[in-house]
C-alpha cells in the first residue's frame, strides 16, 4: 500500500505546449515538470490563461505536448497514435466537464452506459455496471430521467458516474463545480473526495473554487504557463 502510494500515477517531464494565435506564439505551458502519486486528489489552480486546462488535457491524453513527456499509469502518452490514445482514454481515464455535457437524447442510465459501448461488454453487464456507477453517486432512482429533467448538481453527478463506470485509473475534472450553486458544488466536491477515498481513485481537478482546497490532498498552482507551487509539502 505504501509502495502504491509512492508510485507516480502521473509524471510530467519538462513539458511545453504552445499555440499560434495569428503571428503570436502563446506559451500555454512552459517547461512544466511534476509528479502525482496514485490515489491522490489534486487540484490545479491558477488564474485564467495560466495553463491549467492545457495541462489537464495533456494528462487526459486529449492533447500532445510540443516538447517533454507525459507518463500516466506507466504509459508514455506521446508514443501512442490517435487510435491507441483513444483506446487508452477509454480504459484509463474518466472525464468530468464544467457543463456536464451529457447527451440530451439519452437518459441518465444511457449516458452512463455510453463509454461501455466501446468495451464490447454484453448488454446485461453494461447495464449492471451503469447501475452500480449511478448507485455510487446516489442517483439510481433518477436513471430514466433525461438531462433536461435533472438539476445541475444531479447532471454533474451523472457525469461523474459516466466518468467512473469504466473503473479508470485516473479521473480528471475540468471546473466540475463551475456551473453549480454553492450547495451542489460542495456536494460534488464531497462526492469526488469520497470516490477518491473509497475507490482509491487518482483525481486531478482544475478549479477556481476556493472551497475545493478543503477537499483535496494537494494544490498545484500555475501562472502564465509556469508551475509556481507544486504543492509537494501539502
Amino acid at each position: 500500500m505504501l509502495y502504491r502510494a509512492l508510485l507516480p500515477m502521473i509524471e510530467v517531464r519538462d513539458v511545453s505546449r504552445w499555440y499560434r494565435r495569428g503571428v503570436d506564439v502563446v506559451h500555454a505551458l512552459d517547461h512544466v515538470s511534476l509528479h502525482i502519486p496514485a490515489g491522490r486528489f489534486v487540484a490545479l489552480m491558477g488564474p485564467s490563461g495560466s495553463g491549467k486546462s492545457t495541462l489537464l488535457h495533456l494528462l487526459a491524453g486529449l492533447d500532445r505536448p510540443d516538447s517533454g513527456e507525459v507518463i500516466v499509469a506507466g504509459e508514455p502518452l506521446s508514443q501512442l497514435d490517435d487510435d491507441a490514445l483513444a483506446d487508452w482514454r477509454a480504459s484509463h481515464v474518466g472525464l468530468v466537464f464544467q457543463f456536464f455535457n451529457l447527451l440530451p437524447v439519452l437518459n441518465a442510465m444511457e449516458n452512463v452506459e455510453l463509454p461501455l459501448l466501446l468495451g464490447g461488454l454484453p448488454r446485461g453487464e453494461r447495464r449492471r455496471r451503469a447501475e452500480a456507477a449511478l448507485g455510487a453517486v446516489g442517483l439510481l432512482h433518477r436513471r430514466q430521467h433525461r438531462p433536461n429533467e435533472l438539476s445541475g448538481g444531479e447532471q454533474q453527478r451523472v457525469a461523474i458516474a459516466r466518468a467512473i463506470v469504466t473503473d479508470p485509473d485516473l479521473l480528471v475534472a475540468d471546473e466540475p463545480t463551475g456551473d453549480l450553486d454553492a450547495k451542489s458544488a460542495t456536494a460534488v466536491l464531497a462526492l469526488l473526495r469520497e470516490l477518491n477515498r473509497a475507490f482509491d481513485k487518482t483525481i486531478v481537478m482544475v478549479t477556481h473554487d476556493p472551497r475545493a482546497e478543503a477537499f483535496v490532498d494537494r494544490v498545484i498552482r500555475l501562472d502564465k504557463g509556469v508551475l509556481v507551487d507544486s504543492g509537494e509539502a501539502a
Partner: protein
Amino acid sequence: MTWTGFVVRNLLRHPLRTALTTLSVALSIFLVCAVLTLPAALNALFERTASSTRISVHHEAGLSYWLPLSYVQRVKAIPGVAAVNQFTWFGGIYDEPRNMFPNFAVDPETVAEVWPDYRIDPGALERFRRIRNGALVGEETFRRFGWRLGQEVTLRGTIFPVNLTLQIVGVIPASGNPVMLWFHRTYLEEAMEPYGGLRLVGMLWLRADRPEAVDGILRQVDAMFRNAEAQVTAETEQAFFASFLSSFRELVRLVLAVGVLVVGAVVLIAANTAAMGVRERIPEIAILKSLGFRRRPILVALLAESTLIGLVGGILGAGGAYGILTALALAGKTGAGGFLGPLSGFRMSPQVALQGVAISVIVGFVAGAIPARNGARLNVVEALRRLF
C-alpha cells in the same frame, strides 16, 4: 442501449426535421421510380408486341407518306410471304377530340394469318369478316369508352372527309394490342367513293412462313421497290418498333436527366441536413472523442444516420410508387382507370423498386459522407476550447 439505439435516438432528436428530410427523399425516389419505369415499360410493350416473323413495309420517307395499293399484290407474290395485310391510319375521333386513339382500316381476310399471336377469338374474327362495318377493338380502349359488343360507334374523320359508323364485333386481347381499333378497308373505300376513291395505303404488314425466310423477304422487298415511284423501307417488327419508339426514347432520356437532377437536388438537401446535424453536435462529438471513441465509430454512427434516412425514404418512395403504379395498372385493367390511357399499361417492376431503394441508400450515404468525415476528424481540444 445499443449502437442502433444510439443512432435512432440521434435521428429522433429533431423529429420534424428528420421527417421532412425523409419525406423529401421519399418524394424524389417516388419520381425517380416513376421515371425508371418509363423505359422498362416501353421495352416491355415493345417485346410484348414484336414478332419474329412479322415484317413492316412503309414509305422510305416516313409513316405519314402513302404507298400505292398495288404494292399489296406485288409483295404477296414474294416467296416465303404467308400473308399480307395493310394499315391505313384513319385518325378518327370518338365523341370529342381528346378521345383520340389509333384506328386503322385493315383487310379482315388476313388478320388471323398476320397476327395469330394476338389470340383473337375465332368467333370475333368470323363476325369481323362477315359484317361490313364491323370493328375489332383493343381491350383497354374497349374498357376506356365502356363499349359493348354489338354497339355502334361513330368515328369522326380527321384525315378523311368522312365519318364512319362501326359495329363493335370483338375485342383484341390486351396481350396482343390493347389500344387499336381495326375496321374494314373496303368500308372506308366505299365511303371515299364520292371523294374520288382510295387507291393508296398507309403501310403493309407481312408475315413470313418461317423465321428463316425473313432476311430473304426483306432483301426482295428492297430490290422490288428500289426504283419504284414510292420507295419503301422493309424491316422486322422489332426494328420497326425500335425506330418508332426512338422519338419516345429521346423523351425518356430527357425525363431520366430530370430524374438525375432531382436526385442531385435531394443529395444537397440531405447533405445540408446532415451538415446541420453535425455542426450543432460538435460539443457532443468532442465529448464522445474525449470518452475514447475512435474516429471510425463516430464516422459510422454519423453516416448511419443519413443512410438510415435514405433507406426509410427509399422504402417509402419506392414502395409508394410501386403501390400507386400497380393500383393504376389494376384500375386500367378493370376499366376504372380508363382515363389513364396508355399510362395504365405502365407497370413498375419490383426490380425498379429495389433500384429506387438502392439509389436512396446511396443518396443518404453520399449526403452524409462529408459532414460525417468532418465530424469524425474533429480536433477534440479545439472543440473543447469552443465548449468552455
